[in-house]
């Protein structure tokens, strides 16, 4: 953490960046996102196992952009997110300094190639309980899975915290807000919730880097991350597409290969 404080101090003092997006002490022992603008405040940054939120969600927030050039404290999943954002032209290369942190290590990544190298050598590892959840669901029968998801989604009241917490859900007007036609039922009943989560998964297929931010954000405790993780798993097995490791990758869902598997098509 000292290395992090030192690095942030240097960055701000040298004027290389005007703001550092990082984690700080929050309320009730939680961590929270903080925006450090002076070297004197560098020591307010923390980095420990409470820091799960994917801070890349703040990179394009207008208020933050207005502050000037930014550096960001990023765990491996956030680094992948940033790579994916560059690939999707949401971030230009070199626009942000990435302070990649994992356990006790800190690396400063400033260009695309260093980001890619880091992302490729730091896989996103699921915590054991997520691994177990994924296995448990895989073991269910179709009817049981239907039951499982109906029960889980019943809790959803559509606050869209999952969407807001996801750095890759950056559309200014989300499909749920398009009403000509109204693709997704607005009320949070079973049908509306099913449509919403299905759409979210489809839109993140081959893009979700499995950071888990949406699951942590969900106030109702729904393991929604599993849906987008599954969508990305499908893209990986079917199309060999791994999101967040290449800054100039095409998008899984807007490209194709002639040999895409079509055994299910008559």
């Amino acid at each position, binding site marked *: 953490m000292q290395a992090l404080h030192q690095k942030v101090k240097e960055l701000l003092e040298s004027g290389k960046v005007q703001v550092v997006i990082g984690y700080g002490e*929050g*309320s*009730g022992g*939680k*961590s*929270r*996102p*903080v*925006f450090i603008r002076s070297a004197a405040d560098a020591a307010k940054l923390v980095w420990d196992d409470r820091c799960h*939120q994917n801070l890349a*969600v*703040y990179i394009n*927030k*207008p*208020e*933050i952009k207005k502050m000037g050039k930014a550096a960001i404290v990023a765990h491996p999943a956030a680094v992948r997110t940033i790579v994916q954002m560059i690939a999707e032209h949401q971030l230009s290369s070199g626009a942000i300094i990435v302070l990649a942190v994992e356990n006790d290590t800190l690396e400063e990544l400033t260009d695309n190639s260093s980001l890619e190298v880091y992302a490729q050598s730091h896989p996103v590892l699921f915590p054991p309980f997520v691994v177990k959840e994924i296995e448990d669901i895989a073991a269910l029968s179709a009817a049981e899975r239907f039951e499982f998801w109906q*029960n*889980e989604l019943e*809790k959803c*009241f*559509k*606050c*869209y*915290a999952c*969407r*807001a*917490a996801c750095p890759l859900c950056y559309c200014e*007007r989300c499909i749920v*807000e398009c009403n000509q036609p*109204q693709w997704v*039922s*607005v*009320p*949070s*009943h079973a049908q509306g919730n099913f449509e919403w989560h299905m759409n979210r998964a489809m839109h993140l297929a081959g893009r979700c880097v499995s950071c888990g*931010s949406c699951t*942590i*954000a969900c*106030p*109702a*405790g*729904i393991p929604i991350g599993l849906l987008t993780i599954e969508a990305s798993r499908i893209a990986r097995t079917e199309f060999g597409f791994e999101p967040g490791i290449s800054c100039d990758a095409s998008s899984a869902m807007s490209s194709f290969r002639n040999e895409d598997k079509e055994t299910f098509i008559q």
Partner: protein
Amino acid sequence: MKSITHDNLLKLLAGLADEGKIVYAPVRKGQKVFFAPVQNMQPVVFDYIQTTESPKLVLFPRYEPLISFEYQGKEVKVDDPSAAAPAERVLFGSRPCDAMALKRLAEFFDRDIPDALIAGRQKALTVISMSCIKADADCFCTSTGSSPGDICGSDILLTPVENNGYAAEILTGKGASIADRCSSLFSEIPEIRKEQYLAKVEKAFSHEEVRKKLSHAFDHDIWNGASLRCIGCGACAFVCPMCSCFDIQEEGTAKKGSRVRCWDSCGFSLFTLHTSGHNPRHNQSERWRQRVMHKFSYQPEAAELTGCVGCGRCSRACPSDMNLKEQLQDIAANVETV
């Protein structure tokens, strides 16, 4: 004063459900506690500080049809769901802050142009609340006019006492009618001082002071700093027992369907967006300011109604740790008085 044992309380609730009343009680779903209609009392939980979703859904459900319609040629047949008498409901396990919130919420919907759907449900609702013997750092009921044992809004207020039982305050006619009908389940005990059992919630700020300061804090810098980490989801509003903003949407097909009210949040960027593209609240800081101002300044000014009961749900639910209590303490401490 009356008291009831734990077993008799479960019998009481089961009896109410058997009578055909819809009994909403806290049940665990995954890691979180929600209010849900229960038939038998086995899943009802008692060991929570606060439910995740507030009990406002018994008055103001997540969604409800306002009217339903069907085209018959060029004519339209419209049905009014408020014509049918609302079902009798019992809410069990609400906290005193929740009960107060429900009362204020009903008052809000009844103001000026009364909302018959909400009023009908309020009339048919009996609230059996449970005093708080535990609180956490996010609770601030004592700063907003409530307290861990406040009777406001409850028909019966239970306070856990020794020997696995509850002291029962029968507070209204609705409460009395239940207590009378089921009198064998209650026993008489000498008057007790319930304060000794209650959680201690320190007063964090004075809402009167905050209100005074907010009256001239619209352009204050405080909003910019605090809202930087707000990601603009609706979690705070949807778990809030007093947030009453809603959207009206159409369900069904072009031929037949219903017009549905569903929860909405002032934190969403499109909430106030005009068709022309003009948005009166363009930035997240303006939307966060609206949330705080509406609860602690605008509503008190318009109707002497503080839009917050200090349940702390928003602070617990927030994905980026926006803490309402902290924000209000900050206002109390750092906004100048004029």
